[in-house]
């Protein structure tokens, strides 16, 4: 190792010991050092490189972009059936603001779910017939029915839940993890994002690079998008006419020249650059190895469903996610789109559920079988919920739902989460929370907590604020969910 780097590492550790109680001290200090010095190390100090012993080392976030309809999936409301096409009582709506897509409606007729629900598992969780596989694994999950947010439109809401702020410019959850926890491996990025295809309407809500961006954190912490066509990682392949041997020759020569530069200027960044070119070379073989599913046995592929080998599907993404977790990628996030059912839920929602149900189940089971679920946190959910009242034409067979930020469900599993739990309760209309509300900041604080991070102490100075993923108000991990 280069002596300067060695020196830094020593000093960094010493500093951490000395300032152990300072919390931010570690993170703040990091930007003073050449970035590479900390490669592979968390910034948080302490025995684990975290604030406290983590329950999970890695996480997978299955994000349902567009807002799944909780009333048709996980929040069973049997009483609605007899209220079909009656007006939502004002006492329930309480003058709450609506999007301008329905605020002009003259009435807010109740649209009961047309789907059958049954109770499953030890906890007797109600799950709709649209999610038969999810129903099978409720004893692995903590289902939270009482998540809420303030944002009412997609762009601000998804930006909010992914970066802690409704406007662009902040760091995403995964980039905070990469920044705070460092890397677990030398060949793959810390934070990988996939954006699979979907089966609902093709006109779906947009995603934004900012959802996995690093905001004010260094860009090395931004999520790396794994693509299903072309290079899986941007510019991974050598140009045409360049094979691995000639690339190796070039890198060896490059290193020779760069060694001279290092001597000439004495800049530690030069050594870092040499190292990063080597890592790039390693990625060129490790990533194709990761994305090549040919070594997966049939029974595993089959578990993920018929689309598991079709590149770019949600099922394939889940299988890849497991492969990444095995290879110690810190955080994998899958953004499945197409959940914005304003109209005709029965036409789209079954397709969307079919996309994700079996593969999500398979992912949890696969992790469990391999002993990875113990220290891998899995999170499932969208950016808000949908209204009990109908948007557009209402029949027993066809109805749509507008955006609803006041309650929506998510589930978590694995790494330090209590299994077999149903938490939080909404009113008879799935409109207001009546028990155990969980703000999206609480949810994010819970995720950080399981990974060994005190959400109040992971912060960065930005625009004069100690900016945290979880905002400035009082929030914290949901204790009841913690195993």
């Amino acid at each position, binding site marked *: 190792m280069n*002596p*300067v780097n060695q*020196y830094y590492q020593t000093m960094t550790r*010493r500093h951490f010991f000395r300032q152990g109680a300072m*919390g931010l001290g570690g993170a*703040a200090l990091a930007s*003073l*050092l050449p970035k590479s010095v900390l490669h592979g190390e968390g910034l948080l100090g302490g025995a684990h490189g975290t604030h406290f012993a983590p329950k999970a080392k890695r996480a997978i976030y299955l994000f349902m972009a567009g807002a799944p309809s909780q009333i048709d999936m996980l929040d069973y409301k049997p009483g609605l059936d007899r209220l079909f096409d009656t007006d939502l009582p004002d006492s329930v709506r309480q003058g709450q*603001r609506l*999007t*301008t*897509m329905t605020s002009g409606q003259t009435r807010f007729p109740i649209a009961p779910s047309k789907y059958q629900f049954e109770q499953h598992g030890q906890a007797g969780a109600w799950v709709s017939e649209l999610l038969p596989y999810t129903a099978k694994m409720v004893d692995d999950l903590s289902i939270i029915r009482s998540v809420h947010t303030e944002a*009412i*439109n*997609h*762009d601000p809401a998804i930006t909010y839940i992914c970066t802690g702020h409704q*406007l*662009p410019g902040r760091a995403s959850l995964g980039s905070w993890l990469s920044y705070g926890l460092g890397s677990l491996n030398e060949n793959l990025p810390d934070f990988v994002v996939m*954006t699979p295809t979907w089966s609902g309407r*093709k006109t*779906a809500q*947009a*995603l*934004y*690079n*900012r959802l996995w961006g690093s905001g004010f*954190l260094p*860009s090395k912490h931004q999520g790396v998008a794994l*693509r299903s*066509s072309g290079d899986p*990682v*941007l*510019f991974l392949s050598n140009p*045409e*006419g*360049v094979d691995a041997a*000639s690339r190796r*020759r070039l890198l060896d*020569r*490059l290193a020779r*020249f760069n060694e001279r530069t*290092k001597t*000439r*200027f*004495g800049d530690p*960044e030069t050594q*870092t*650059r*040499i190292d*990063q070119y080597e890592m*790039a070379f390693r*990625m060129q073989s490790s990533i194709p190895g990761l994305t090549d599913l040919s070594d997966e046995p049939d029974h595993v592929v089959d578990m993920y469903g018929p689309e598991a080998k079709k590149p770019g599907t949600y099922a394939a993404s889940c299988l890849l996610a497991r492969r990444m977790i095995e290879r110690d990628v810190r955080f994998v996030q899958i953004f499945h789109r197409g959940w914005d059912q304003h109209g005709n839920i029965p036409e789209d929602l079954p397709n969307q559920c079919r996309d994700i149900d079996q593969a999500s189940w398979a992912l949890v089971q696969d992790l469990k079988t391999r002993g990875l679920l113990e220290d891998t946190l899995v999170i499932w959910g969208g950016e808000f919920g949908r209204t009990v009242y109908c948007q*557009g034409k209402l029949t027993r067979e066809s109805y749509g739902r507008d955006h609803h930020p006041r309650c929506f469900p998510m589930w978590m599993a694995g790494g330090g989460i209590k299994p077999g739990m149903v938490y939080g309760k909404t009113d008879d209309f799935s409109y207001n929370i009546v028990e155990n509300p969980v703000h999206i900041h609480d949810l994010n604080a819970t995720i950080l907590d399981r990974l060994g991070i*005190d959400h*109040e102490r992971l912060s*960065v*100075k*930005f*625009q*004069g604020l100690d900016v945290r993923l979880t905002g400035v108000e009082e929030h914290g991990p949901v204790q009841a969910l913690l195993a």
Partner: protein
Amino acid sequence: MFEYRTVRHFCAALLLVSGGVWSQAMASQALDFNRDVRPILSDHCYACHGPDAQKRKAGLRFDQEQAAKADLGGDAAIVAGNIADSVLIERVLSEDEDEVMPPPEFKKPLTPDQIEVLKRWVSDGAKWDNHWSFEPIVRPVPPTIEDDRWTRNAVDRFVLARLTEEELDPQPEASRDVLIRRVTFDLTGLPPTPDEVDQFLIDESPDAYERVVDRLLRSSRYGEHMARFWLDAARYGDTHGLHLDNYREMWPYRDWVVEAFNRNLSYRDFVIEQLAGDLLPNATRDQLVATGFNRCNVSTSEGGSIKEEVYTRNVVDRVVTTSTVFMGLTFECTRCHDHKFDPLTMKDFYSFFAYFNSIDGEPLDGNRKEHAPILRLPSTFQTQQIERFDGEIAALDEQVQGAWKEVDEAQTLWEAGLVAAQEKAKEDDPGALVLNDWYSVGPFGDVRLYLLPRKHGPEGKAIDLKASFKTSTDEIVKWQRRAAWKDGVVHSDLKGDTAANFVYRVIESPTEQRVKVSLGSDDGIKVYLNQKELLSKDVSRGAAADQEFLDLPLKKGKNELMLKIVNYGGNTGFYFSLVDGASALPKEILKIVELAPNARTEEQNAQLRGHYRNKESTFPALVAAIEQLKSLREKRSAVDREIPLTLVWKERAEPRKAFVLNRGEYDQHGEEVSRRTPGALPPIPEGFPNNRLGLAYWLTDESHPLTARVAVNRYWQQLFGLGLVKTAEDFGSQGEPPTHPALLDWLAASFRESDWDVKALMKTMVMSASYRQSSKLTPELIERDPENRLFARGPRFRLDAEMLRDQALAVSGLLVERLGGSSVKPPQPDGLWFAVGYSGSNTVKFEADKGSDKVHRRSLYTFIKRTSPPPQMSTFDGPSREACVMRRERTNTPMQALLLLNDPQFVEASRALAERMLMEAHETDSKRAERMWRLCLGRYSTPEELSDLQAAYQDELAFYRSDLTAARGLIGVGETSVRSDVDEAELAAWTTVASLLLNLDEVVTKN
């Protein structure tokens, strides 16, 4: 992102451990309140004992001297000179969990060093100064330096004085080949050519360097380079940034910035024109374009958005950006509560908000590139063209309207025939079908998904031509009569991208009958007859005749036909005609014909003549003239469509009211406020208007303590890598204090006194010995000052994203050096936009431009889709331009290595560099290698370097000789094609050598 004091404590820690000199220096050096004490109070105490009255505990505050030292019933937090009586010290030293400050649950404990500082400060007399950046700028006298052999200008005297204090020596001047490369990159963003390097190397005159600097400052490339830093701060992008993220036409503002730097517009005017160009007397077109600064904020038209909420967000963005880029103030915090650290209140925020809340335009952008208010910017040529067309149209129109004896005679006959036919028809037929004028209303914007299915405007209601409708962007639209629309042609003068329009007409039928019509639409169509839906077709197409045929079941009498035309992007329009010989005449015309000629009014005569000439006459000369008129009008509108436009500011006649918004919520109005600058800063000088113009004058007034400091700091940061205040965006108490406060003030004062001359400022800085130092690092320097905060060496850091790409294009000879124009899309990997884009967005599909004049332009001109910025930028820390960024991070990652090695644009540049060198006819491989080396590095190679390059070439040549397919593959990458007369293996081998060069640490770094 971290505090300078952390550096000092870090260093202090090191040196205390190793028994170094720092601790002695610390002990002997007087404490400076702003540098040493305030940051501790601010970071650890202000949250509960600071400016925010709501959060203040025990009525105690440490942000004001008087309050901090006040007698609180026998005790005082701070008793000057008396540690024992100062409760502050007692509490920070306490070991009782309930007593100790800050409280453990605050999770920001003090370090022993910090406690020591507080103790020393109190015992030394607790001297208090106001926050440094709010103090007026007074031009300091540069320190006297005993040994002035190293210094070149005043900058160096400040730098050297500090170095002497720290017992460090500056570095000698960098070698000339390093220096010219450094300064050329810093002033133009491009590398010097080998000729430029040679000229400088042999120039023995004392002002050789100065002449290089002057030459660079005169180059148009200077403005392009300077502009891009500003565009990060101004959050300029080519899309709206939110939700659909559609195209926004804004590049004329970008060009204005380039031009402003090139003509060396004083920073004062730079500020004034951007903030208030529209309010200047007799504002020029350029000054209006400049106001685009406050239109660069991201915007939305997401379905369901609440207008008031979006309005508030837009204004907040403008307030935050304006205060950050010009004043380094973190106003964002005061949106929801009084500032916890700086003397800024919520009321200050919303009083400032009141300057920016009265734009004459809608908050929702309608997903249109021309989100009003806009300014159209025809070129002189376009203006001339339009004028010419207008002249020709007027003349021809007059001709068509004028005397046509034969035509008038034919009209008389036609009228007579018509009257006769009418009479006959009345006898045995109830009468002809009458098609009345068309009406239209729209556009009704909506998300693509809902355009066709959802009811808009008049849909589902009884038709009332007097009704007006609210669109999704809260604009009011009304029915518009379309008397000129003739059947049987495509009408494409409907508007709105991703929007629905309605067209409507009354058809009078003498009897109940079915009439067959032919329809066309761009894109989808719904047909309603007498409120009943007859057809709904969801398609994407251009409008043409006969796309749909429909039998209209007409009842006797009045029938209402309404078409909904849905547009998914681009142009929109429709087609209508009767088929199967069904004929119809507008009812009004019939009525006129039925009148005796002398009973008709002038207007009726004109209407009749117009109808006859346009629709009935077959007189060849007239028909030809009408055709020509039509074609002229089309040509005119084609030119008109090409005219660029840009978003600008225009003030409403009556300012909107402003209120304190409780908790920052748009719908929680508190106290009404009027325009006022923050209380902690000087007021707007007398005689200035209390509007944005006054605000702009105030910012650039001598009394303003921040504007000049923030500006010079940003320019310093550009050259030295870090500002004198590292937190370039935060000059408040949570930001870092300056490392060289006197130097900062000297630069700020000189800048102001020079009439804010940016080129002069840049010149002063690059002429300094501090800038010209060698950047060689020693282990000692790395230990003492890893970030080069003391400037004991020259700046050395990785080139920015734009410089890297521009360098590759420049050295390979591909660069197209054309100033300005609409943004370009050089190739990027497929699917990046599609992976995230909204399906209905007009930027969901990336299509690379073709041709060198587009794909090889400077990166400044690359199209920035804000929700998916170009990877060549974002991989190298280029921001997404969604929010104001005052300084970029500088990372070093494997993704960067992959991009520089494998991105086809860089591979193409490598090949072009090799090709360029081969075309230049150098005799030997050694000369060839040397030429490529010099193009990339400027300097001459050492024998060792040269022989390594040649060896590389030989190895690669052997490889490609043995595999010509591989050679062809490699040299086939890119936009430009290879000359046919080259040896493919040689070119491929040299291409690899070029790629090696473009990846060298020394090449990707400003040395």
